[in-house]
């Protein structure tokens, strides 16, 4: 019975990611777009759960659904809303977008269909300690670089706001 459940959940999450992602691009209402983005993030978390990475799934929801979507909504609500079509702004770049998508998309699709991972996923639930181990030993330097980048962004944001005030 659980053998049917897993592919079923996979399809639910896949439809969630792709469908909501497409709606984010195609819809015209910006609040709906922000919410559908939250749905995309949540479906991604579901995918992580299916892969047995509970911790990453929960962090995905905590950071993307709980914080980043809120910040986007915050931004949307504080900016002026009018009925101008948001899609028009991007329309001149369609050929460029198509070209870049092809260049990146075709190899990705090719890799995705030819890729076979011989290693079976590790046992479920125990991913927190290996995650912490790799984050603080093998990937300590990228981790620190990311922290410094975020700190710089934080300081930059404060500086920008301060200039606005004057």
């Amino acid at each position: 019975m659980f053998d049917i459940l897993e592919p079923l959940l996979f399809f639910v999450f896949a439809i969630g990611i792709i469908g909501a992602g497409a709606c984010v691009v195609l819809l015209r209402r910006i609040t709906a777009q922000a919410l559908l983005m939250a749905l995309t993030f949540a479906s991604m978390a579901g995918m992580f759960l299916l892969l047995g990475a509970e911790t990453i799934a929960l962090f995905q929801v905590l950071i993307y659904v709980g914080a980043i979507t809120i910040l986007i909504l915050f931004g949307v609500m504080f900016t002026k809303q009018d009925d101008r079509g948001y899609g028009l702004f991007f329309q001149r770049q369609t050929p460029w977008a198509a070209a870049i998508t092809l260049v990146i998309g075709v190899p990705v699709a090719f890799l995705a269909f030819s890729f076979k991972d011989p290693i079976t996923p590790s046992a479920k639930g125990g991913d927190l300690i290996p995650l912490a181990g790799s984050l603080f030993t093998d990937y300590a330097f990228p981790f620190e670089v990311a922290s410094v980048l975020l700190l710089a962004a934080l300081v930059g944001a404060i500086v920008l706001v301060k200039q606005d005030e004057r």
Partner: protein
Amino acid sequence: MPIGPFGIDPVIWAVLRLVIAAGLAVFVLLNGALAQTLLERKVQAWMQDRLGPYHVGPYGLLQSVADALKLLTKEDIRAKLTDAPFFLAAPAIVFTPILASFVVLPFSSDVMGANLSVGLLYLTTLGSMTVLGIVIAGWASNNKYSLMGGLRSAGQLISYEVPQILGLVTVVLYVGSLSMVDITNSQPGPLVNALFLPFAFVTYFIAALAETNRNPFDLPEAESELVAGFLTEYSGMRWAIFFLSEYGAITVVCAIMTTLWFGGWHGPGVDAAPLLGVLWFTLKTYGFVLLFMWIRATLPRLRIDQLMGFCWKVLIPLALVNIMASAVIILAFADPRLALAIVNWLLLGGLVFGLPFTQRRRLLGFRKRTRESVAMRDVRLSP
């Protein structure tokens, strides 16, 4: 063929267990909210020297049942210019994470929905999701008071999430596990974590007050300024679902405090009769619920700049200091409890006595102004 509990097929048992757990969660949440609304009104009435509800049933015990019936039968009103799909979805978005939180609460060593290895992270994550619903409710109501409430809520909840998680991290560092069961089992005796980590507890407690929109942090629904904040346009059962979620959230954060700092289900006689743990857990949790009500009956509301300033300038730096000191101590000592206790009590003392000290000029100003206004009144009153 393997046989599960009660001689039921394990595949059917897995589904059945899920249904039972969900049913119990709904039951506990709904009845908890009924009990807490009554408790809240009675406790506040006693503290303010009033009677509180006393018409329905003996001592007014059935008041919340009558209120629930009234709310259920009320007409479902929606203003014309609200954003229909979001307006209708917002209560559900707030309510669902709260309901899902009940799955990992360890009521006793046997009574719990699931023992997740990342249970605490799960609870934090679900707690952060309710903001989304509140912001959407504020936006979709198409009302400036609602929008203000939603925006305040977003700012407040995102800010106070930081000290909340920092408070939890100290306990997780000390216990070495995110599982609610492991954390409970690490404090079987009378020496509960609250004795070693009081500062982490106070950080979490204050942040939890803000996270559940309780006084003195109930700015998103400040009645005196914003009508009812993000709840302004809601009525009937949709409004009631927001309140169910609020009381559910209070129960969840109180249960987290019970588990992390006060030994969870442990108490006298639990080893002999494990089901007694449910009683101890519930009693401890409702102790904190009562504390929340006491605070609501006592303290005035903060201003938004005071609220943000307190979070970013006081709570977060002190919590970071606490985490750094705790990490070093836990690495350095085989039995870190004494050193942890010293650092934590010092930090707590610093918070309790340092804050009035740094604000002494402002406090003196307040006192002077009060004295002057009293003197003015006396002058006016004298013949």
